[in-house]
Structures are given as structure tokens and as C-alpha cells.
């Protein structure tokens, strides 16, 4: 009888989880506010997912980045207040078979001087009693970098005021459930970029506009693990990522060494704790360490550095703070609240099936961008 009860419980659990999977008709609205000393970004986003018959599902999102001022560190000559908008729309379709899932996604992003089309596909399958998952994805993007102030060398050939940036990317991942309370994952990613990789506006003091190599191969290896302590209703996640890039293929004429070689390590830890049946808190801490690529040269900070290769007029050089020697830290606290307790309250009961979340974090950067406040909030509801 006990065994039968366990089997019945397992079956009902499986049915419940399956119905939960099928009930993925969901709408999510979210907002993020990012504030640095001279850059503020407000990003509202809405995403809708819809389940269709035969294991097919659709998703779509729309977001707007409203940049309410520009950072001098990003290359603008005058740190004047202005409003720039980036719009992004994404569409995706997925198909799930018994243990296998395939997706196809597309994303378009547009702003006044940058346009991007990206498409990618993914395939994953589970095995070993649904405890192991192997997944892979691959895609490409076709970007156009516009120039409002000058005509760079790449655009001079075509006579247009824009340059292309193409990339192909892909990766594989493996996730393993180790026990009822432990999961681990490893990922390997890569991306090949070919085109205009610099910032169109940023200049290096005493030299002129920055010049990046025209090709870049980015690689990343990451590992994650999670463990849950049922008695304490507390979970722990840790992750590590190592990144390195290099110039793919033969070096251009006049360049004797790889101009890239940017390396970075990221460590992140998260603690989840259930404060009540409907309220959960998450603490997050992230540290990022970066060594600059060979061609990075911030003349004011490092008088001895020189542009890489000759002639100097075409040499690679950049003082972009984002690729210089860098260390960032990010502590954050987040509250996640299931609004089930609103079920008996008039009007508010319409939102009782959803989940609210709000988070605040402080992003510390040891470069000229300065530290940032990051506030995020959102609400997600099945429909």
C-alpha cells in the first residue's frame, strides 16, 4: 500500500509538473534602471509566451533602452544630456518532443547609429532518466554601425556612412542532476566577429579615433553548481567563467603579435532563502577581473604605451575603459513574492496568480565609468 501510494504520488506529481509545463501561456513585464555618474538607462520590456498544440510554443518580446545621458568615457566629446532610444524586438518558436527540444529565434535591434539582426537555433535533449541534458546552439548576427560625424576607412570604400559587423556564434552545454538537491552545468561558447569592432566616437588622447582589429574570436568556458538545503529552505548557487579572445587566422601585414589576448574571470554566488511560503529573498555577489588586450593603450594613464604595429596612422589603439584592466563587483538583493495571498481581495485577485520581483544592486567599477545603481522590478503572470 505504501509503495502504491508513493507511485500514485509520483504519478500525480508528474501530471502536475506536466500541466505546469503546458501552462506556459505567460506575460511578463519588467523594468530596469541603471544609473552611473553620467549615464542613465531605463529599460522597460514585455514578453509573451504562448503554448500551442503538438508541443509547439511561441514567444515574443519588445524592449526599449532609453539612454538619458551619454558617458564621456564612452567617447562623446561633450557630456551633454540627450535622449537616445534603442528598440529591440524578438521572436521565437520552439518544438518539444518527448525528450528533445528545438528552438528558432530572431532578434532585431535598432538605434540611431546601430542596427542588428540576429538569428539562432538551439537543440537539446535529455537522457539518463531525465537527469542529464545536452544542448547546443548556433547562430549569426549581421550588424551595421553608423557614423554621424565622420567617414571611417571601412566606409570610405563604399561611400556609405556605415560599416558592417558580422558574427557567427555557437556553444554547447551539459547539465546533470547529481542528487535530489544538487545540479551542475558546464558550457563552452565561442563567437567569431568580423567587421567594425570599435566605438565610432571614442578617441585616444593625442592619437585620434581608436582603431580595433577587424577580426576577433571570443571563447568562454563556464561552470555552475547549485545545492539546496531543504531543512533551511535555502539554496546556494556558484558559478565561474573564464574568457579569452584572440585574432583568428593569420595576422595582418605589419602586425607581429596577437593584438587581442583579453582574458577575464568571473565568479558569482547566489543564496536563495524562503522567508515564507510566498516570499523568497536572493542575495547575489559577483566579481569580475579583466586583463586588457595587447593593443589597449590609455596614453594619459600609461605614458609609455604606443599604438600597436606600424604605420602609426593605421595602428591598433584603444583607450576604451571597457576593455582596459578592470575589476568590477556587484552585490545585489532581490525579493520574489508570489501574490497568492491576494486571492480574496477584490480587484487585486486578478493579479494573484502572478509573481512580483524587485531588486537593487550596486555595480562597482574601478575605471572612469564610475559606480552604478541598478534597480530592477517585474511582474509575471500566467494567462
Amino acid at each position, binding site marked *: 500500500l505504501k509503495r502504491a501510494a*508513493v507511485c500514485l*504520488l*509520483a504519478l500525480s*506529481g*508528474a501530471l502536475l*509538473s506536466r500541466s505546469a509545463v503546458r501552462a506556459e501561456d505567460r506575460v*511578463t513585464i519588467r523594468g530596469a534602471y*541603471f544609473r552611473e555618474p553620467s549615464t542613465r*538607462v531605463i*529599460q522597460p*520590456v514585455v*514578453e509573451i509566451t504562448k503554448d500551442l498544440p503538438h508541443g509547439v510554443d511561441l514567444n515574443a*518580446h519588445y524592449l526599449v*533602452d532609453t539612454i538619458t545621458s551619454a558617458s564621456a568615457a*564612452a567617447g*562623446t566629446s561633450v557630456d551633454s544630456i540627450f535622449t537616445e532610444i*534603442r528598440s*529591440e524586438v524578438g521572436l521565437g518558436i520552439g518544438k518539444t518532443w518527448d525528450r528533445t527540444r528545438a528552438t528558432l529565434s530572431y*532578434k532585431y*535591434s535598432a*538605434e540611431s547609429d*546601430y542596427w*542588428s*539582426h*540576429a538569428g*539562432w537555433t538551439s537543440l537539446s535533449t535529455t537522457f539518463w532518466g*531525465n537527469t542529464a541534458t545536452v544542448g547546443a*546552439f548556433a547562430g549569426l548576427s549581421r*550588424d551595421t*554601425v553608423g557614423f554621424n560625424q565622420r567617414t571611417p576607412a571601412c566606409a570610405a570604400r563604399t561611400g556609405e556612412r556605415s560599416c558592417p559587423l558580422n558574427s557567427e*556564434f555557437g*556553444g554547447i*552545454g551539459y*547539465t546533470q*542532476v*547529481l542528487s*535530489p*538537491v544538487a545540479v551542475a552545468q558546464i*558550457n563552452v*561558447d565561442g*563567437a567569431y566577429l568580423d567587421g567594425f569592432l570599435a*566605438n565610432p566616437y571614442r578617441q585616444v588622447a593625442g592619437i585620434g579615433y581608436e582603431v580595433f582589429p577587424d577580426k576577433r574570436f*571570443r571563447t568562454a568556458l*563556464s561552470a555552475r553548481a*547549485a*545545492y*539546496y538545503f531543504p531543512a533551511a529552505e*535555502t539554496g*546556494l548557487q556558484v558559478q565561474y*567563467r573564464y*574568457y579569452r579572445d584572440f585574432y583568428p587566422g593569420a595576422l595582418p601585414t605589419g602586425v607581429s603579435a596577437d593584438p587581442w589576448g583579453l582574458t*577575464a574571470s*568571473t565568479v558569482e554566488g*547566489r543564496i*536563495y532563502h524562503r522567508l515564507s511560503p510566498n516570499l523568497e529573498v*536572493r542575495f547575489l555577489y559577483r566579481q*569580475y577581473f579583466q586583463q586588457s*588586450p595587447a593593443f589597449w593603450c590609455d596614453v594619459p594613464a600609461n605614458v609609455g604605451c604606443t599604438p600597436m604595429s606600424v604605420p602609426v596612422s593605421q595602428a591598433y589603439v584603444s583607450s576604451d575603459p*571597457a576593455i582596459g584592466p*578592470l575589476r568590477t563587483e556587484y552585490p545585489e538583493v532581490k525579493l520574489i513574492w508570489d501574490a497568492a495571498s491576494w486571492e480574496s481581495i477584490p480587484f487585486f485577485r486578478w493579479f494573484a496568480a502572478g509573481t512580483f520581483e524587485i531588486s537593487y544592486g550596486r555595480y562597482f567599477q574601478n575605471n572612469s565609468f564610475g559606480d552604478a545603481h541598478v534597480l530592477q522590478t517585474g511582474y509575471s503572470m500566467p494567462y
Partner: protein
Amino acid sequence: LLVVAALAAAGVAGCAHPPPPPVQPWQREYLARRALRFDADPLEDRFRQHWYGAREGADLGFGQPGGGCGCN
């Protein structure tokens, strides 16, 4: 001969077959918790990746594609 005998014994004992899955269906209660899911917050992940991509030199790492700038 000893090696062959040992391998045969191991096969009889079941070692030649894959081990059973480490978690059975009725043991999955906690696996649905946010703490044990790496994809619990896809929209947050997307925002964080875009922000890190604009402020740090090392993009990629967790299976998210690029595209778009908004790098100011």
C-alpha cells in the same frame, strides 16, 4: 585469465550496464525551486548580459547570443 574472470564477474554483477539515474521521478520536489534552476530568470539574464557586454570586455558564457549595442 584473471582479468577476463574479473571482467566477467563484473558483468554478471551489473557493472557492464549503465548505473541507474541518480534521481527518480518522485525525488524531484526540490529541483523545481529557483535555487536549483539556472534558467529561472531569463529576462533578468538578458538585461545583465547586455549591461555586462557594454561595460566589460568579455561577453559570452551562458548560451546567450549577441546583437544590438546601446553601448553609451
